[in-house]
Every structure is written in structure tokens, then in C-alpha cells.
């Protein structure tokens, strides 16, 4: 982006206008209002949730409410942790998300590499069939996908209550595969051709040339893969009837009716911490991925 060289690209409001005294006053007013508005709209609800989990049950229901907890009850969090057995629930979630990540990275990368660089016959048709699944609303597949998981064709296995029911469908992710393929398409072909001439097979080329050059896209796809499993609700609700194996989002809803509100809110905060941490750590990659991958331009 050429934008980096100059301090700011010309946008709606001209920089000349902003240099005038009135322009500067208007800018700072609008800026302050925007900061305040964003803080109130997007951060305040989260603040309310985090502090709500520190309040005593009485204080939580008190009207008018307290904006800062009078007494800080950190034990709400530890109580929620033990009552919901969050250690087990989070272990389930990590197992499901980690496996889904591994399967997607291995199988989607291999498939995208084959379609982009090995270019087999009917490769375009296969890519078309994969992209076509983006057009099929996920909800239309809900019931038949569930029936497939209950009785996998040819294999005859029942995947219910096993992490395979999360792992295998997660690979059928056309969006991530498309991101990978588009990235591989832009890698310079002459390096790969030179390696092929020197006798490097397809796997060596993938491992030693393509993958090291693809760190950014692998990072984005990894984050999307893990976050998607962490956030998913309806699918794990269907394939995990066994409450001992359910991931965090399903467990939260199942226990929401029976758990005291303070503990429930504390559990909600705990459920959000990993994804928010991932977001804050990798925000640059995530934002770049969304901006670039959302719409082709």
C-alpha cells in the first residue's frame, strides 16, 4: 500500500480544511465523540459483563445498579470453574478445536496446493464444485449432515459423541480452502519449476518452498479454524448428546437455566477469554485477513 509513505491518504475531508482552526476544533470534537461512542457501544457491554461477574448476587440484582462493584467477589469465577467443571469443558473444546485445526491445515493445504500448483485434469471443475458449496446455505445441510454423521456412508461409523464429528466436517470449509489456493496462485511459479527441474518431488516442493512462503495465510486460516470451532453452537449441540463431552458454548446454554446468574456470567467471561486473547495477539493478521478475504476486489 502506497498509503504508508504519506502520513494520510486524501479522504472525504481535505487535509487543508483540517489545518484551519475551525477544522481542527471540529475534528477533535468528532474524534472525542467517536471514541466515546465506540467505547460505550462496544466496550461497555463487555465491561458490564466482566464486572457483573465480580458482584454479589444481591448487588447484581440491585436497582439502580452499581457501576463499579462494591465488593469484588473473585470467588464467583472459581465457583463457576468448579461448578460447571470448566476444566473438563475447556479440555473438550481444546481437543475439538485443535483437531479441527490440524485436519484443516493438513488436508485443505494439500488440496489447495494440488489445485493451484499441480493442476490435475478436471482441477477447475473440482474447484468449481468446492466454491459452489459457499452458495449452499449451511442451514439447508443441517439435517442431512447430521444423518451422515450418525451413519457415515461406506464406513458405517457413528460419529456422535466423538470429536471426528467436529473434525471431518470442518475440513469441508470452502472459504479457507479458497484463501489458501488464492495465496498459492500468487507464489512465483519459476521457483517451483526450478525445484522440479532439480528433481524435487511435489511433497518436497510443498514442504520446503510453498509452506515457508505461506506463513501469513497459514496463520489466518489457523485462527479462523480454531475460532470457528470455539464459537460454534448448533452443530456441537447436535453431535454431542453426551453432556460430558460437550464444548464450552453448548455447556453454557445447557447450564444457563440451573446456574446462579453470577456464576453463569463468570463462566461466560471465562469462555470469552481465549478467543479475545487470540484476537488481541493476532489482531493485525485477523484484520488483514477479514479485509482481504471478505470480498474479492
Amino acid at each position: 500500500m502506497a498509503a504508508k509513505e504519506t502520513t494520510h491518504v486524501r479522504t472525504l475531508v481535505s487535509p487543508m480544511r483540517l489545518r484551519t482552526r475551525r477544522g481542527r476544533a471540529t475534528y477533535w470534537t468528532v474524534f472525542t465523540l467517536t471514541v466515546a461512542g465506540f467505547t460505550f457501544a462496544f466496550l461497555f457491554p463487555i465491561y458490564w459483563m466482566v464486572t457483573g461477574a465480580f458482584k454479589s448476587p444481591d448487588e447484581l440484582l440491585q436497582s439502580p445498579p452499581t457501576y463499579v462493584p462494591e465488593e469484588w467477589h473473585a470467588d464467583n469465577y472459581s465457583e463457576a470453574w468448579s461448578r460447571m467443571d470448566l476444566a473438563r469443558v475447556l479440555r473438550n473444546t481444546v481437543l475439538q478445536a485443535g483437531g479441527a485445526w490440524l485436519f484443516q491445515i493438513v488436508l485443505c493445504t494439500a488440496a489447495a496446493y494440488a489445485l493451484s500448483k499441480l493442476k490435475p485434469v478436471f482441477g477447475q471443475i473440482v474447484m468449481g464444485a468446492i466454491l459452489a458449496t459457499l452458495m449452499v446455505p449451511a442451514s439447508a445441510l443441517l439435517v442431512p449432515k447430521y444423518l451422515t454423521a450418525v451413519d457415515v456412508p461406506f464406513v458405517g461409523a457413528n460419529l456422535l459423541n466423538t470429536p471426528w464429528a467436529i473434525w471431518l466436517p470442518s475440513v469441508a470449509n470452502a472459504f479457507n480452502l479458497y484463501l489458501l489456493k488464492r495465496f498459492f496462485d500468487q507464489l512465483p511459479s519459476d521457483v517451483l519449476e526450478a525445484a522440479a527441474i532439480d528433481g524435487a518431488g511435489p511433497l518436497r516442493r510443498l514442504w520446503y518452498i510453498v509452506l515457508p512462503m505461506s506463513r501469513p495465510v497459514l496463520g489466518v486460516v489457523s485462527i479462523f479454524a480454531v475460532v470457528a470451532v470455539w464459537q460454534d453452537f448448533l452443530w456441537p449441540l447436535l453431535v454431542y448428546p453426551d453432556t460430558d463431552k460437550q464444548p464450552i458454548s453448548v455447556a453454557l446454554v445447557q447450564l444457563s437455566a440451573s446456574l446462579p446468574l453470577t456464576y453463569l456470567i463468570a463462566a461466560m467471561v471465562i469462555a470469552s477469554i481465549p478467543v479475545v486473547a487470540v484476537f488481541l495477539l493476532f489482531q493485525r493478521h485477523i484484520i488483514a485477513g477479514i479485509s482481504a478475504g471478505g470480498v474479492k476486489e
Partner: protein
Amino acid sequence: MTSTAVGAPRKPGEPGKPRRPRVTSGAAGPSGRKPSGSLRRKITDNLTAYGFLAGGLACFALFSWYPAIRAIQLAFQRTGGQSESGGTEWAGFDNFTTVFRDPEFAAAWRNTLQFTLLALLIGFVVPFLLALLINEMRHAKTFFRLAVYLPVMIPPVVTALMWQWFFDPGPGLFNELLRALHLPTSNWTNGEDTAMVSLVLVATWANLGGTVLIYLAALQGIPGELYEAAELDGANLWQRIRHVTIPQTRFVILMLMLLQIIATMQVFVEPFIITGGGPGDSTITVLYLVYKYAFVYNNYGSACALSVLLLAFLAAFSALYLRLTRHHG
């Protein structure tokens, strides 16, 4: 999605590059392919490529392509408890008539369309305005992006439970804020008239971050000279938005509108967790009804019939989306 461009020999971004550059080892010959034995070579190359593809394709086949066909098949079948023989039998259009006769059918479609329309009105204009605003800011750009995208990262279940608590007519945050400002309070999700609007607020809050970021990327692609030229012609702020910003981002606006319609027509988590479809049938949605047919009534055929109706409805938008991206690309 330019799947058409895949067939092009090299990427077009590098002009003037010779087709066969610097062959280092002479033994391999030009581009390493000999005419003799090329068929065998081709076959092994293809086998290797499909070896790489196999795992991914198996997953797509099992969990995308086959279910898509099976959805249509099931819509015309009776299974398990629904059929007289206990097995699978053809049902003609019976599943569809079952669904049509259900009093919740009309309610579900009405609510879903209402949700989509409201989400379009609120959730469509707001992100565009926010993106415009962020793009004008000379400071704290990272803060704005982080803040607007943070709700997207929070698990939807947490968002839904959090808002359910905020909506509580008694000690909920919203009524407390309204009371603090001496404004009339609302029943939010407990009132038949306000329940759907309340759910739209949740969905908008939770999802607009992604839209804002994509708009921002589009806004940054607008050449600054266009604004300068418009300003020289005496265009005021509104006219610059109207005649430069909107035409320049028209494609992205249209894409996101279609994607949003497709996504909001499949709303499920918010009504399922926050209202349970109520009060009455005021927030039951099409996907919620699919869920009920399949997993409450164990009637897979009718669930699929309803899915197929939704699929047909959305196919129109999907086709439009595909046509536009193709056309544009």
C-alpha cells in the same frame, strides 16, 4: 471468485517475463518435459495431484456434496417413525403439505423476513457510516478497529446470554440506563412487538465488525484525486459521499448486502437462546422451525422440505451474488 482465471498460463501481474527463463541444467531440456513417455508422466502427475486432493475431497463429498443431494431426496421421503413400514419410503409432496399446514410456518417466514429487513435497515447503514467515520480519523485507528471487531470474536452463545441478561425488564442494563435517563422502559424480548427488533439489535452488535472492516478496506482503495477533483468542482461533504464514495464502493456494498441477506435469513442462535421462539410465536424463524421438525418432532422429511424451500429462496440471492462477482472479476 475468478475460477476462470485459473486456466491462464501465468499470473498476469508480471508482464514481459519470458516463458522459459534461465534453464540452468541443460539435461532436462526446455521446461523439463520430453515428448516421449509424456502420457505416462501425465498419468502419474495426475495421480499424485489427486493423492494430495483425496482427504479434502472425501470430506467435501461426505459433508457438503452428498448432504446437499440428500436434503432434496429426504424432502420427498418419509423416514423412521413417520413411515408406516418403519423404513424409508417415498412421500411425494406430503412433507411439503405438512409444512404448509403448520400454523408456525407462516409465522416463521414472516419473522425471518422481518428480521432480515430490519437487519438490512439497521445493520446495513450503520456499518457504512462507522467505516466512513473511522476512515476520516487521523488518530487511534487501531482502537476503532479493535473495538468494532471485538464483539465478533466473543462466542455467539456468550453474546446471546449476555444480551438476554441486558434485556431483563427488571434489573437488566437497558432498562436501568433508560431509568437513569428518565426515559420510558421497554419490555424488550418479553414483548411480542419488541422481541424481534431486540434480536436484530443483538445480531447487529455482534456482526457489524466484519462489515466495517471490509468497507474500510474498500474506502482506502478510493483514489484521493477523485475527492480533490470533486472539491474543486464545489462539491460539499454530502455530495462527495453521494457522487464519489458510494459509486466507488458500489460493488462492495452490493456484495455485502447479498451476503447479509443470505446470513440473516438463517438466523438461529439468537432466537433459540434468548427467546426460545417466543413470546407466542413472535420470534420463531425458519431455521428454528427446521430444528424443531428434525430434533423435536423427529420428522426429518418435513425438516428437509422446509430446508429446501429456504434453499430455493436463497438460491436466487446466491445466483445474483455469483453473477455479480463473475461479471466484476
